[in-house]
């Protein structure tokens, strides 16, 4: 007397296949879907003023340091004060509706509420000045900002990603004069110096 139909013989196989697929799925979820590659990359919030880096940097050719002025001296990159915007926009496009928040800020003294795009966890102490001094260009972490209409995160900004470069910084180094250059490539004439970035915990966590 056969209680179970013959077709059930395939059940263990089916279970095995489904279990394996589920496992792969779970691994995928954690490996990719929950990783900074998915969670961090591509973050592109809407800003109160639709500031276009493509226009200002790509077409007008402003240097990054015109606005992010203290980047070579301080840890923080600094979002420019309204004053910097008004330096030009007191004369240029004075009636643009898009610039209304800037003019309001200038008149009231209240800050423009920019949305932070590149954000590191609170226990990470990143210093812009020392990276720039070592010859790491803006492009290495921020990508081709000059082609972006809206700024978005182009790299994972995970600890593994940081460490990749800290272990071997040479591909990301360039002459200090070219750090803000978005199109610089090494034609072989530049020999990267040894910069010895830290790979221990307290290098970034304090």
């Amino acid at each position, binding site marked *: 007397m056969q209680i179970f139909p013959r077709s059930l013989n395939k059940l263990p196989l089916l279970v095995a296949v489904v279990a394996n697929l589920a496992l792969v799925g779970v691994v995928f979820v954690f490996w990719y879907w929950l990783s900074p590659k998915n969670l961090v990359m591509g973050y592109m919030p809407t800003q109160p003023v639709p500031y276009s880096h493509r226009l200002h940097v790509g077409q007008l050719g402003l240097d990054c340091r015109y606005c992010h002025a*203290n980047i070579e*001296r301080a*840890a923080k990159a600094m979002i420019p004060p*309204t004053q910097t915007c008004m330096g030009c926009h007191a004369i240029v496009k004075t009636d643009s509706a898009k610039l209304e928040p800037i003019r309001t800020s200038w008149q009231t003294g209240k800050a*423009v509420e920019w949305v932070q795009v590149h954000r590191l966890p609170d226990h990470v*102490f990143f210093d812009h000045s*020392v990276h720039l001094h070592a010859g790491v260009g803006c492009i290495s972490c921020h990508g081709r900002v000059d082609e972006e209409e809206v700024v978005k995160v182009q790299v994972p900004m995970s600890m593994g990603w940081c460490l990749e470069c800290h272990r071997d910084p040479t591909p990301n180094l360039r002459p200090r004069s070219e750090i803000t250059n978005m199109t610089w490539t090494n034609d072989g004439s530049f020999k990267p110096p040894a910069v010895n970035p830290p790979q*221990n915990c307290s290098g970034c*966590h*304090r």
Partner: protein
Amino acid sequence: MSKRQPYELDVAKNDAAPIFWKSLEQKADPARARAEATAEFPRAAIAADLAKSDLVGPVGRRGFLFGGMSAALLAVEGCARRPVENILPYSKAPEYMLPGIPVHYATVREHRGEAIGLLVENHEGRPTKIEGNPDHPGSFGGTDAITQASILELYDPDRSNGPRTAGKEAKWEDFEAFLKQKSVAFAADGGAKLRVLMTPSNSPTMLRLRDALAAKLPQSKVHVWTPLSNSNAREGARIAFGKPVNTIVDYRFARVVLALDSDFLQTEPGMVRATRLFARGRKLRSSHESGMGRLWVIEPSYTNTGANADHRLRLAAREIEPYLLALGKELSTRQGVDLSQIAPLLATSTGAVDGVPPQWIKVVADELVTMRGRGAIVVGSRQPARLHALAHALNAALGNAGTAIGTYPANDPAERDVAADIKDLTADIDAGKVETLVILGGNPVYDAPADLKFAEKLAKVPTSIHLAHSVDETGSKCTWHLPRAHELETWGDQRTLDGTLAVQQPMIAPLFGGRSEIELLALVTGDPPTGYDLVRATVKSGSTIPAAVLEQTWKAGLNRGIFASSGNRSLGPMEVVGGAVVTAFSKSQASKPLAPDNLEIEFAPDPKLFDGRYANNPWLLELPDFMTKICWDNAACISPATAKALGLASGDVVTLSREGAAHVEIPVWILPGQADNTVTVNVGWGRTVTGRYGTGVGFDVYPLRTSDALGFADGAKVQKTGKTWLLAQTQEHQSMEGRPIAIDTTFDEYRRHPNFAQFKTPDPKVLPLWKPVEYKGHKWGMVIDLSSCTGCDACVIACQAENNIATVGKDQVHRNREMYWIRIDRYFLGEDESNPPVAIQPVACVQCEEAPCENVCPVNATAHSPEGLNDMAYNRCIGTRYCANNCPYKVRRFNYLEFQGGPTGSTPDTLYGDIPETRKMQFNPDVTVRMRGVMEKCTYCVQRIQEGKIASKRDERPIKDHEIVTACEQACPAEAIVFGDLNDPTSRVAKYAEIDRGYHLLSELGTHPRTTYLGKIRNPNPAMEQG
């Protein structure tokens, strides 16, 4: 499973060295103390408490698991896109302001009648850390614990946020209108019914405005009161020299210092300067030095100064006077000491004092005479004025005045004796002569002499105006309360005791709309209303410099923090009026001998809360008292013999009473080294009206303090109540199992055996576990000189401010959960329980090269850096606490609860359950604020190291020695801590680490610590032992 017993070290056991003990209990029963130290949950009470669920907070284990699961799901959902954070740049950027780069401004602060110059670190306009100004003679770069903690006072959440009148909130405009109306009455009768009560001041602007008030309203009067004043010293100098002068002892130059009831290393005026000079005078760079200073201390209770003495005698405070007379008599017999002027006075002495061994008179006199011109007799500020005068006469006769002791004109020659002055005020109130009383700072209802009944008197005054930090005992009884601006919020100025002028610069606009004393006084006198204008006007008025140059002087003065050449020149040796000194003693009278039923009570300034004004500062409340190690409480200290006679144990609550005064209940603490038949109480505790932290903490002893006994008095009685009080104290915490740790010797022994310290800490007998690492780049190290450390606790608070260290509350301290990264261990030495010498040792993480903590971390959260730092990655820590267990130095601290404030209600204790927004403003943005469940410890201030390294890379230069300074090193007034790169042969730390008396803590374990201790050298006089 058997527990491995701590090993016994042969060298230590066989050595005839004195035994070390941390508490009387430990000495009596070392086995119990050891068991307590090794238990995870020491003390039965805690184990019982742990069974109660409320300890784990409002959420129990099941609730947590349930809530945790849903929270985990939410977290998965939530982290898909992190919360939106905004960046708010300035609209119009301030000049020279770079976001992320701290700015330091020079300012000055008054503490205990002396000015301390400061450099304050500001992050985007938010002061976060106070450091000493190296150019300022009141600081020399050092600070004290209270100054370090005053940054938290600025952010006190309980500061009042506006004027109040009749129990209702009001506006400054209301007060100004009220005052305007009053001014009419003032002008009509020349201010006859106006009285101002202020604290003694060294501020030229304050004094100028006071004189302006006297000129405008000639009938008005200004009184001074502060519970812990320098009035006796002033009066003593006035008796001796005929005019009020300040005396400053150069402890570096003085080779013999006799401190009589004077805690000049902690609670007396000018402690920072004194500590720096004292430590420099005793600094030994090698065993070849020819000699070092010697400190003799006679005092009733153990103080920091007593702990640093080479010879210490415990003596009731009232016996100091016969002692000094006997010493004077002895000195007068020596050749070349002319004391003929006061001969009739010295003739009254028998030349011997009960309880004082004869050699304490003879040998001390020998030394003072030998070291003529390089000695100093220092008398404590609670001793009567006549004793100060006598000391001046003796110092003058020994040629010390003008050499070791500088004399400077008083900043305020008109200042009166505080007790007499407040008495006059209360008498005037009784006589109905006061209609308006303006109280500028101070808290007289709480701290005025009990016999004056100030609260009752204040009620009789129709209009009372009180300017204070928060609504306190006085403010709540006044018709007007006005918020006082913090020193970091307003302009002001201060002179040091030697006259150096420094300007107090504001770091931040008043957070709660407060105003300073000078601004309030200016409202009455009609001067310009802002502090800036007032201070500028003072600088201008006292100067003959042309305006254009004055502008330069002003700017340079602000920049440097002192006005160069403003310091008064020392007046040189002054003539002592011998007759006046003799007359001053004519009123002395004999009294009943001291006995257990006739105790002497001494009122001591609290090293933390001072007179009570810092009572709402959790850093200071939690700081363990230097000697008793009690946190969050004060206690009445009695000697072991007196405790035995009265049948008391530590923690017993007694009724302390005095004839002619009220009585108070207070727990007793048995303190070795306390004079028999005396009881010492610290004032400043038991505040009834203050903020959330300090209200009702400790025991108020001001009710016992009357105007005739501001320092000490006999006739005190102690009655057992049968109650006991839990005193949370840390003296047995973090025990190191009786191994040789704080190593000391005498100067003679040191010269014979320069390497004495290494004998006790032999090289490891074990091979290293791993291949030793070669440190090629920087090799950070620290040297702590036990000979210099005075145990003032400045480093402890500086570390707390720099590294965002939590306060945990009394309950958690009792559970061994204090969070200090650096602690000051205090050991008693020897068999004698009545007057044991003390060893002091600051201990922080020693950054072992072979760190035991690293090997046991299952998640690699603590790892070694190539520069030899024992790094701690908080975000990786899962809280197994294996590392803390395996640390032989017991320097790792675990966040058992959300000590830095989680979401409201997440922890049961109000201390950190709901952390105020203002408190968060103090956090150092360069250091992670740790959460519940992670381990933390000293990092050698790695944020400062990284900052220094980055700056050097940016500027393409090597790191200079002393460029990177840890917070503890910076704060240390004794220069006991030196930090730097051991691989740089020119660095101070490399040189110090090579000093012969250096040793590594528990070196025999093979941990290779980076911190080197320099053994303590005592300098006793061999003649004392021969008797």
